[in-house]
């Protein structure tokens, strides 16, 4: 199975259905309201996911 299916994880977490859970003000994380924090987190984790797919496909 293609490693590219891992791309569904950021999509699920950030867009659908993740946004239903993330769309909240509380709890604050490191001074950031939750939805803002969630966006910052998934920018990083999308990067990590693409890197992981790249590594898996290199092998």
């Amino acid at each position, binding site marked *: 199975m293609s490693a*590219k299916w891992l791309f569904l994880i950021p*999509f699920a977490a950030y867009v*659908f259905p993740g946004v239903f859970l993330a769309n909240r003000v509380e709890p*604050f994380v490191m*001074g950031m*309201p939750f*939805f*803002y924090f969630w*966006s910052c987190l998934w920018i990083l984790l999308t990067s990590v996911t693409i890197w992981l*797919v790249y590594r898996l496909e290199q092998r």
Partner: protein
Amino acid sequence: MALFVIFLYLAVVLVVGVAARVKGRFSLAEYLVAGRALGFFLIYFLLVGDIYSGFAFLGAGGWAYKYGAPVFFIPAYAAIAYMMLYILGPKIWYFGKKHGFVTEPDFFVARYDSKFLGLLTAIIGVIFIIPYLQLQIMAGGLIFNAASYGAISQKLGMVIAFVVAGIYVYTSGLRGIAWTNVIQAVVMIVAALAGVFYIIPKLFGGLGPMFQELAQKSPQHLTLPGAKGTMGYSWFFSVTVLSGLGFWMWPHLFQNNYAASSDKEIKRSAFIAPLYTYLIMVTATLGFGAVLKLKLSNPDLSVMEMIKLAAPAWFVGLVGAGGLAAAMSTADTLTLNPAGLIGKNIYRDLINPRAEDSKVAKITQTLTLPLLVISLLFALFAPKLLVKLLLVGYSGITQMFPGVLLGLFWRRVTKAGIIAGLLVGEVTAIWMLLAKVKTLFGISFHAGFWGLILNFAVVIVVSLLTKPPREEVLKDFELA
């Protein structure tokens, strides 16, 4: 002092952009796709430089100020766009190199064995790019005006900035754009980092206190459906998916893939690229801060005005240069691209098929000038004329997505299917947007997203009802 910093930046960009020109081997592939020779460093800045446009610089702050959390659709669609880059980019690059493509319509002509589809996609590209170019020019002028504390009018700012961009696009083509994108990225990153680590702490004592205050005074800014109460889940979902899938369908972004020296460079760019989106979060953050500090008649100025509240003039100049960089690094590709579409897909493919490559290259180069001048004139004298087209922009461009995706992965897709789907998608999107139809079948998805769904459905049905493509074409695209 602010003016000095901006002019210094413009001078550096001009020198580097013109110097990037490769002497001696002037060809269409050299001019439009930098001879397919850009390594990791340049291809990275080329691929990310366009997402952070002048609109994003002003607009992300403006959106955060005006609507609040709906602005997070930008990092969300960027995440989808960069995953799509990893999936589509290497294939677009591979077939581009194999068959010598230099534009997006080139792909359609070869894959669907149809010069008509080449013409259709070239026209769609030009129609939606010109208003987008005009928007970048106007954003550039607005930033110039604000950063110079009004010393340079918006109109004069537009002319100065885009004469500079016009010169290096004309002389150096995509190579000039790639090199200037590096400088522009550095200026933007410095400006943005300073924004977060200097401006916010100085005005609020840190990110935490700022958001605590916002959560008390205007909590609706921090969640969907936003401060205006109009952007809920179905809006967020459909706009994010529409923009994420449509991103690489913009002809200028599609063909940047051709410029890479190998598919590996595209893949490596794809996993570093999302980090660039933090710049959007920075401008959005300043916009959130502006809710507490400023009463603005033009929300697009929230970033510049926040900086002015806390920083000395030279720094305002630097941020202005950063914003100008964002607008120029998008506008330059938007000038080059329609010239290529007209030169290659209309002049070469349809009017004069036997024209030599160097002649097509020369015509393309010459076309950049009238295209920039026309857009500049629209921006100066009729700024509102093309606004409606802009509203349709992403929705119109994304309708090319089924043609690219299915063209790469499904052997059964046919020319008739793609043409029918494209027309249904465009008509649906444009009709819903212009007639202000908010829901279809009771679901309030964005107009362009509805267009895309119907487009896919029509492509699949019509393809299955029409004769499969020739075996030679399928062999060319390794689907046989």
